[in-house]
């Protein structure tokens, strides 16, 4: 079909395109792919973070797999994941659906809602720490006993606080996703339902929720995979405490590696984190019947 000149030119062009991707690949391979492979390699070594790296076979793996601390960290990570998902999803859907309406004050609400999205986890954690101080915080000043409990000193309270602050930080982002999705639902579907006499609740459960299926999967994927990375917030808020009540995997990795200078065992935890992340992404992809990234591509 093509003459030899255009054919050659086409080949020349195609030969140039991979070079355009090369710089991104170099950065990504250097500081993401090699580290992922590297962390697996480091899990078979002994290293204190400063001295020489000694190969040590399965020592770290054996030590970690028989360490009840690891199981506990996995359990806490799982609890944070489930609890923060269960708090965030219904609220985000509700707020997103509401924000998708066309009330005049909606714009103002949206501006305020999205502020938490902008703040650093460190700033948020520090604010809540000061705000909930049992002696000098909000509760003491206003005389509200519920608020002046020792939020960081008791395991259940500290755990609830972590879930609450995570929700405070991320609900805006997920409401935004749902808001965009609800706006894409054809209005005619609601009109038809209304002609059939369906009420608001019925419309929500028969139209809005089913139409949001893929959004729920995308949003849940981001929440669940994201929950593996709640390091900053928990580190500044509770440092994993009291005791190890909020010591999630990422925190356990940091403490063993950079505070106890046991890079081998810390690398084992990192490998587990990578595997859990990949497994969850694949599982949710199965669940959705299609790739979350695919749905993002179609959504744009």
């Amino acid at each position, binding site marked *: 079909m093509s003459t030899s000149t255009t054919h050659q030119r086409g080949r020349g062009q195609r030969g140039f395109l991979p070079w355009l991707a090369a710089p991104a690949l170099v950065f990504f391979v250097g*500081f993401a792919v090699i580290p992922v492979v590297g962390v697996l390699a480091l899990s078979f070594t002994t290293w204190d973070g400063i001295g020489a790296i000694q190969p040590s076979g399965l020592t770290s793996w054996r030590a970690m797999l028989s360490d009840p601390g690891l199981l506990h960290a996995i359990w806490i990570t799982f609890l944070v994941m489930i609890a923060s998902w269960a708090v965030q999803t219904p609220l985000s859907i509700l707020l997103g659906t509401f924000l998708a309406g066309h009330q005049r004050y909606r714009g103002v609400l949206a501006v*305020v809602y999205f502020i938490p999205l*902008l703040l650093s986890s460190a700033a948020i954690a520090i604010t809540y720490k000061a705000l909930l101080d049992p002696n*000098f915080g909000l509760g003491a000043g206003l005389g509200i006993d519920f608020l002046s409990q020792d939020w960081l000193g008791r395991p259940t309270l500290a755990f609830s606080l972590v879930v609450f602050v995570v929700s405070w930080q991320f609900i805006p982002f997920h409401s935004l996703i749902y808001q965009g*999705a609800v706006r894409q639902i054809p209005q005619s579907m609601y009109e038809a339902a209304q002609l059939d006499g369906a009420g608001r609740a019925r419309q929500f459960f028969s139209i809005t929720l089913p139409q949001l299926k893929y959004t729920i999967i995308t949003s849940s994927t981001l929440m669940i995979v994201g929950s593996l990375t709640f390091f900053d917030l928990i580190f500044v808020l509770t440092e994993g405490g009291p005791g190890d009540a909020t010591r999630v995997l990422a925190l356990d990795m940091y403490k063993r590696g950079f505070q106890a200078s046991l890079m081998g065992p810390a690398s084992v935890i990192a490998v587990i984190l990578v595997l859990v992340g990949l497994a969850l992404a694949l599982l949710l992809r199965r669940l959705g019947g299609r790739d979350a990234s695919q749905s993002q591509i179609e959504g744009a």
Partner: protein
Amino acid sequence: MSTTLTRPQQQAAPHRERQHRTGPARRPNWLGGLTSVLWLAIVIIPIYWVLITSFKAQSSYYVSNPMLPPGEPTMQNYRFVIQADFIQYFVNSVIVTAGAVIPAVTVSFMAAYAIVRGWSSRFLRAANGLFLMGLAIPLQATIIPIYLIIIRLHLYDSLLALILPSIAFAIPLSVLVLANFIRDVPKELFESMRIDGANEWTTLWRLAAPLTRPAIVTVSVYNALTIWNSFLLPLILIQSPTQRTLPLALWNFQGQFSVNVPAVAAAVVLTTLPILVLYAFGRRQLLGGLAAGFSR
């Protein structure tokens, strides 16, 4: 393309008219309304509290009602925070953010262009798959080898140590979003560029870049936000106080002066102020772009 970003607004207009006619919106959504007001209070209270507390004198803080604004607002906390080298930390954060966002978005844009235009190439499809995998892997898990690499490159305790991994971490999502927008550019435009004798390099900068400008802004703002707020990288890769970025400095400051709550509040406000300015500036692009990138 600008049309992509304005699409929700354009759709919104006919909806509004139609709703007035048939009126599902006439019956108020009590549950949604109530939740939204409640959530508004939950969002505002901590922000309001930090703001008013930052203007209180330390001596009056413990005896005043925490929810009432200070009787005599003082700037002394802000003066104290600025004297604690926060200008230096601000400059560091600006250097790291600009130094990472500009190259990250540039290389991501080039890669996204190559992936969209060269979809027939197996190499580029594999590269795309690799970037997508980067979205599923919690990149914090790679911090130990990154620490090792940074030490071996003799970059430990430098701002470049923060910049290089930040670029890598920003690439997967940037490529994904930018590729989505480049795909929206009509094929005919590429074809006419080709007929005019333009090569891929020229087409990239003269055609694709101007047409996807809103997406480039969105991705830049989003990455800037992530990198500005990043805490783990400086925590691990920075040692000297002079090299700290704002979140790390804030954490250290809090550890040192935790009893001086008004000063800590002022530090929180000061580290957040630049982002709020950025938000006021690029709100539409950020929110519109995020919605377009993830919805559906």
